[in-house]
Protein backbone atom coordinates (compact mmCIF):
# COMPACT_ATOMS: atom_id res chain seq x y z
CA UNK A 1 0.00 0.00 0.00
CA UNK A 2 2.78 2.35 0.89
CA UNK A 3 4.51 1.46 -2.34
CA UNK A 4 1.40 2.32 -4.37
CA UNK A 5 1.02 5.63 -2.52
CA UNK A 6 4.59 6.56 -3.34
CA UNK A 7 4.31 5.62 -7.04
CA UNK A 8 3.74 9.10 -8.52
CA UNK A 9 6.56 10.56 -6.45
CA UNK A 10 8.83 7.65 -7.37
CA UNK A 11 8.02 8.10 -11.03
CA UNK A 12 8.91 11.79 -10.89
CA UNK A 13 12.22 10.90 -9.34
CA UNK A 14 12.98 8.03 -11.63
CA UNK A 15 11.89 9.62 -14.92
CA UNK A 16 15.05 11.68 -15.54
CA UNK A 17 17.15 8.65 -14.69
CA UNK A 18 15.17 6.50 -17.13
CA UNK A 19 15.64 9.08 -19.88
CA UNK A 20 19.38 9.16 -19.30
CA UNK A 21 19.61 5.36 -19.37
CA UNK A 22 17.54 5.20 -22.57
CA UNK A 23 19.68 7.87 -24.18
CA UNK A 24 22.88 6.05 -23.33
CA UNK A 25 21.50 2.78 -24.69
CA UNK A 26 20.23 4.24 -27.97
CA UNK A 27 23.37 6.31 -28.55
CA UNK A 28 21.34 9.44 -28.97
CA UNK A 29 23.12 12.33 -27.31
CA UNK A 30 20.55 14.91 -26.32
CA UNK A 31 22.62 17.89 -27.30
CA UNK A 32 24.41 16.27 -30.22
CA UNK A 33 28.15 16.12 -30.59
CA UNK A 34 29.89 18.65 -28.44
CA UNK A 35 31.59 21.41 -30.38
CA UNK A 36 35.35 21.37 -30.42
CA UNK A 37 37.09 23.93 -28.23
CA UNK A 38 36.82 27.34 -29.83
CA UNK A 39 33.86 26.31 -31.95
CA UNK A 40 30.40 27.89 -31.52
CA UNK A 41 31.60 30.10 -28.70
CA UNK A 42 28.75 32.54 -28.72
CA UNK A 43 25.16 32.62 -29.79
CA UNK A 44 26.09 35.21 -32.40
CA UNK A 45 28.20 32.68 -34.28
CA UNK A 46 25.22 30.35 -34.43
CA UNK A 47 22.89 32.71 -36.26
CA UNK A 48 21.09 30.65 -38.86
CA UNK A 49 22.05 27.36 -37.25
CA UNK A 50 19.39 24.72 -36.87
CA UNK A 51 19.67 21.27 -35.33
CA UNK A 52 18.85 18.42 -37.67
CA UNK A 53 18.10 14.91 -36.54
CA UNK A 54 19.77 12.24 -38.60
CA UNK A 55 17.21 9.42 -38.70
CA UNK A 56 19.74 6.68 -39.35
CA UNK A 57 22.53 7.48 -36.93
CA UNK A 58 20.44 9.24 -34.28
CA UNK A 59 23.05 11.95 -34.17
CA UNK A 60 22.12 15.60 -33.94
CA UNK A 61 24.03 17.63 -36.50
CA UNK A 62 24.14 21.37 -36.96
CA UNK A 63 23.31 22.87 -40.30
CA UNK A 64 24.68 26.38 -40.39
CA UNK A 65 23.63 28.95 -42.96
CA UNK A 66 26.58 31.24 -43.69
CA UNK A 67 26.06 34.86 -42.88
CA UNK A 68 26.36 37.34 -45.75
CA UNK A 69 30.01 38.29 -46.17
CA UNK A 70 29.34 42.00 -46.17
CA UNK A 71 27.46 41.80 -42.91
CA UNK A 72 29.75 39.71 -40.82
CA UNK A 73 33.19 39.10 -42.14
CA UNK A 74 34.60 42.17 -43.81
CA UNK A 75 36.27 44.73 -41.63
CA UNK A 76 35.13 48.30 -42.14
CA UNK A 77 38.67 49.35 -43.01
CA UNK A 78 38.56 47.01 -46.05
CA UNK A 79 35.74 49.04 -47.63
CA UNK A 80 36.48 51.12 -50.70
CA UNK A 81 35.13 52.49 -53.94
CA UNK A 82 35.24 51.41 -57.57
CA UNK A 83 34.90 53.68 -60.57
CA UNK A 84 33.98 52.08 -63.89
CA UNK A 85 34.77 54.25 -66.88
CA UNK A 86 33.47 53.82 -70.39
CA UNK A 87 35.40 54.91 -73.49
CA UNK A 88 34.21 55.36 -77.05
CA UNK A 89 36.87 54.00 -79.40
CA UNK A 90 36.83 53.70 -83.18
CA UNK A 91 36.30 49.97 -82.75
CA UNK A 92 33.58 50.07 -80.12
CA UNK A 93 32.92 50.50 -76.41
CA UNK A 94 35.68 49.89 -73.88
CA UNK A 95 35.68 49.86 -70.07
CA UNK A 96 38.22 50.20 -67.28
CA UNK A 97 37.92 50.02 -63.51
CA UNK A 98 39.68 51.93 -60.74
CA UNK A 99 39.54 50.75 -57.14
CA UNK A 100 40.43 52.84 -54.09
CA UNK A 101 40.75 51.16 -50.70
CA UNK A 102 42.94 51.52 -47.63
CA UNK A 103 44.82 54.45 -49.15
CA UNK A 104 45.71 52.41 -52.24
CA UNK A 105 44.50 53.03 -55.77
CA UNK A 106 44.72 50.85 -58.86
CA UNK A 107 43.21 51.41 -62.30
CA UNK A 108 43.15 48.47 -64.71
CA UNK A 109 41.65 47.31 -67.99
CA UNK A 110 41.36 44.13 -70.00
CA UNK A 111 43.59 44.07 -73.09
CA UNK A 112 43.64 41.75 -76.12
CA UNK A 113 47.26 40.68 -76.51
CA UNK A 114 47.47 38.79 -79.82
CA UNK A 115 45.74 37.74 -83.03
CA UNK A 116 44.22 34.73 -81.26
CA UNK A 117 42.36 37.10 -78.94
CA UNK A 118 44.15 36.09 -75.76
CA UNK A 119 43.58 38.65 -73.04
CA UNK A 120 45.40 39.99 -70.02
CA UNK A 121 44.88 42.67 -67.40
CA UNK A 122 47.03 45.78 -67.56
CA UNK A 123 47.35 49.14 -65.89
CA UNK A 124 44.74 51.37 -67.47
CA UNK A 125 46.04 53.59 -70.26
CA UNK A 126 42.70 54.61 -71.73
CA UNK A 127 41.84 58.29 -71.43
CA UNK A 128 38.90 60.64 -71.88
CA UNK A 129 36.03 58.50 -70.66
CA UNK A 130 32.59 59.33 -71.99
CA UNK A 131 30.89 58.00 -68.88
CA UNK A 132 31.88 57.03 -65.34
CA UNK A 133 30.07 55.54 -62.39
CA UNK A 134 31.40 55.13 -58.83
CA UNK A 135 30.11 52.47 -56.45
CA UNK A 136 30.89 51.64 -52.82
CA UNK A 137 32.66 48.33 -52.23
CA UNK A 138 32.19 46.42 -48.97
CA UNK A 139 35.53 44.71 -49.60
CA UNK A 140 37.69 47.12 -51.57
CA UNK A 141 40.82 45.31 -50.44
CA UNK A 142 39.46 42.10 -51.97
CA UNK A 143 38.95 43.91 -55.28
CA UNK A 144 42.50 45.31 -55.18
CA UNK A 145 43.90 41.86 -54.43
CA UNK A 146 41.91 40.37 -57.32
CA UNK A 147 43.19 42.99 -59.77
CA UNK A 148 46.78 42.67 -58.58
CA UNK A 149 46.60 38.91 -58.94
CA UNK A 150 45.62 39.17 -62.61
CA UNK A 151 48.06 41.87 -63.75
CA UNK A 152 50.04 40.48 -66.69
CA UNK A 153 48.38 37.05 -66.46
CA UNK A 154 46.71 35.31 -69.40
CA UNK A 155 43.01 35.73 -68.67
CA UNK A 156 41.72 33.57 -71.51
CA UNK A 157 40.30 34.16 -74.95
CA UNK A 158 38.24 37.29 -75.47
CA UNK A 159 34.51 36.77 -75.72
CA UNK A 160 32.07 39.62 -76.12
CA UNK A 161 29.59 37.98 -73.75
CA UNK A 162 31.64 36.05 -71.21
CA UNK A 163 35.19 37.46 -71.16
CA UNK A 164 35.05 41.13 -72.13
CA UNK A 165 36.46 44.34 -70.69
CA UNK A 166 33.04 44.89 -69.11
CA UNK A 167 32.71 41.40 -67.63
CA UNK A 168 36.21 41.89 -66.16
CA UNK A 169 34.93 45.04 -64.39
CA UNK A 170 32.05 42.92 -63.08
CA UNK A 171 34.48 40.33 -61.74
CA UNK A 172 36.35 43.08 -59.86
CA UNK A 173 33.08 44.36 -58.37
CA UNK A 174 32.27 40.78 -57.35
CA UNK A 175 35.67 40.46 -55.65
CA UNK A 176 34.82 43.72 -53.90
CA UNK A 177 31.79 42.11 -52.32
CA UNK A 178 29.03 43.21 -54.70
CA UNK A 179 26.46 40.83 -56.09
CA UNK A 180 27.58 40.94 -59.74
CA UNK A 181 27.63 37.67 -61.73
CA UNK A 182 31.08 36.41 -62.71
CA UNK A 183 32.18 36.30 -66.34
CA UNK A 184 29.05 38.01 -67.60
CA UNK A 185 28.88 41.06 -69.82
CA UNK A 186 25.11 40.93 -69.46
CA UNK A 187 25.20 40.65 -65.67
CA UNK A 188 27.63 43.56 -65.34
CA UNK A 189 25.64 45.77 -67.73
CA UNK A 190 22.46 44.94 -65.83
CA UNK A 191 24.11 45.81 -62.51
CA UNK A 192 25.44 49.14 -63.76
CA UNK A 193 22.15 50.03 -65.45
CA UNK A 194 20.31 49.23 -62.21
CA UNK A 195 22.25 52.05 -60.53
CA UNK A 196 20.41 54.53 -62.73
CA UNK A 197 21.71 57.34 -64.93
Amino acid at each position, binding site marked *: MTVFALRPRLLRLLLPLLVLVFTAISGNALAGPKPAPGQFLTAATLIGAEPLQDATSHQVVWKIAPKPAAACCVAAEDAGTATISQYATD*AGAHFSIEVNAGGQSLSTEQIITNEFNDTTIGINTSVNPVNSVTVQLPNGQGALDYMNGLLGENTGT*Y*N*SFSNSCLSYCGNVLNAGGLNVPLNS*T*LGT*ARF*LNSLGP
Partner: protein
Amino acid sequence: MIKPKSIAQILAELVVEGGMPLKAVAITGELIAMDARISDYPNGAMKHGSLIDIERAAESYEALVKKAEGIGKDFLETKDRQTLMNELVAIKDTMAALL
Protein backbone atom coordinates in the same frame (compact mmCIF):
# COMPACT_ATOMS: atom_id res chain seq x y z
CA MET B 1 35.29 28.20 -63.74
CA ILE B 2 32.38 26.92 -65.81
CA LYS B 3 32.46 28.52 -69.22
CA PRO B 4 29.02 29.48 -70.51
CA LYS B 5 27.95 27.68 -73.64
CA SER B 6 28.00 29.50 -76.95
CA ILE B 7 25.77 28.99 -79.99
CA ALA B 8 28.77 27.54 -81.84
CA GLN B 9 29.38 24.93 -79.13
CA ILE B 10 25.74 23.88 -79.01
CA LEU B 11 25.39 23.54 -82.78
CA ALA B 12 28.76 21.82 -83.19
CA GLU B 13 27.67 19.18 -80.68
CA LEU B 14 24.46 18.73 -82.67
CA VAL B 15 26.42 18.18 -85.90
CA VAL B 16 28.79 15.66 -84.32
CA GLU B 17 26.39 13.78 -82.08
CA GLY B 18 22.92 14.56 -83.39
CA GLY B 19 22.97 13.10 -86.90
CA MET B 20 22.10 16.45 -88.46
CA PRO B 21 21.11 16.37 -92.18
CA LEU B 22 23.75 17.75 -94.58
CA LYS B 23 21.64 20.72 -95.62
CA ALA B 24 21.35 21.77 -92.01
CA VAL B 25 25.08 21.25 -91.51
CA ALA B 26 25.74 23.90 -94.16
CA ILE B 27 23.60 26.47 -92.35
CA THR B 28 25.11 25.43 -89.05
CA GLY B 29 28.57 26.14 -90.48
CA GLU B 30 27.42 29.66 -91.32
CA LEU B 31 25.98 30.11 -87.83
CA ILE B 32 29.20 28.95 -86.18
CA ALA B 33 31.19 31.43 -88.28
CA MET B 34 28.74 34.19 -87.35
CA ASP B 35 28.96 33.24 -83.69
CA ALA B 36 32.75 33.57 -83.81
CA ARG B 37 32.44 37.06 -85.28
CA ILE B 38 29.75 38.09 -82.78
CA SER B 39 31.90 36.95 -79.87
CA ASP B 40 34.92 38.82 -81.21
CA TYR B 41 35.75 42.43 -80.34
CA PRO B 42 34.19 44.83 -81.18
CA ASN B 43 31.10 42.97 -82.37
CA GLY B 44 28.28 41.51 -80.36
CA ALA B 45 27.50 43.40 -77.20
CA MET B 46 30.45 45.76 -77.31
CA LYS B 47 29.69 47.37 -80.65
CA HIS B 48 27.09 49.53 -78.92
CA GLY B 49 27.74 52.92 -77.43
CA SER B 50 25.46 52.78 -74.40
CA LEU B 51 25.21 50.36 -71.50
CA ILE B 52 21.48 49.97 -72.17
CA ASP B 53 22.19 48.81 -75.73
CA ILE B 54 24.99 46.55 -74.51
CA GLU B 55 22.56 44.96 -72.06
CA ARG B 56 19.94 44.48 -74.79
CA ALA B 57 22.44 42.90 -77.19
CA ALA B 58 23.71 40.55 -74.49
CA GLU B 59 20.13 39.61 -73.59
CA SER B 60 19.41 38.93 -77.23
CA TYR B 61 22.43 36.64 -77.46
CA GLU B 62 21.47 34.82 -74.28
CA ALA B 63 17.99 34.22 -75.70
CA LEU B 64 19.58 32.81 -78.87
CA VAL B 65 21.74 30.44 -76.83
CA LYS B 66 18.63 29.14 -75.06
CA LYS B 67 16.82 28.82 -78.38
CA ALA B 68 19.72 26.88 -79.91
CA GLU B 69 19.72 24.55 -76.93
CA GLY B 70 15.98 24.00 -77.34
CA ILE B 71 16.31 23.34 -81.07
CA GLY B 72 19.03 20.79 -80.46
CA LYS B 73 17.02 19.02 -77.77
CA ASP B 74 13.86 18.96 -79.90
CA PHE B 75 15.68 17.62 -82.94
CA LEU B 76 17.30 14.84 -80.93
CA GLU B 77 13.84 13.81 -79.75
CA THR B 78 11.75 14.26 -82.91
CA LYS B 79 14.31 14.07 -85.76
CA ASP B 80 12.08 16.60 -87.52
CA ARG B 81 14.43 17.96 -90.21
CA GLN B 82 12.10 20.59 -91.61
CA THR B 83 11.50 22.18 -88.21
CA LEU B 84 15.25 22.10 -87.60
CA MET B 85 15.91 23.91 -90.88
CA ASN B 86 13.27 26.56 -90.16
CA GLU B 87 14.60 27.22 -86.66
CA LEU B 88 18.21 27.47 -87.84
CA VAL B 89 17.23 30.04 -90.46
CA ALA B 90 15.36 32.03 -87.80
CA ILE B 91 18.45 32.00 -85.57
CA LYS B 92 20.57 33.20 -88.48
CA ASP B 93 18.32 36.21 -89.03
CA THR B 94 18.49 37.23 -85.37
CA MET B 95 22.25 36.68 -85.19
CA ALA B 96 22.79 38.96 -88.16
CA ALA B 97 21.42 41.85 -86.09
CA LEU B 98 24.25 41.37 -83.56
CA LEU B 99 26.99 41.85 -86.18
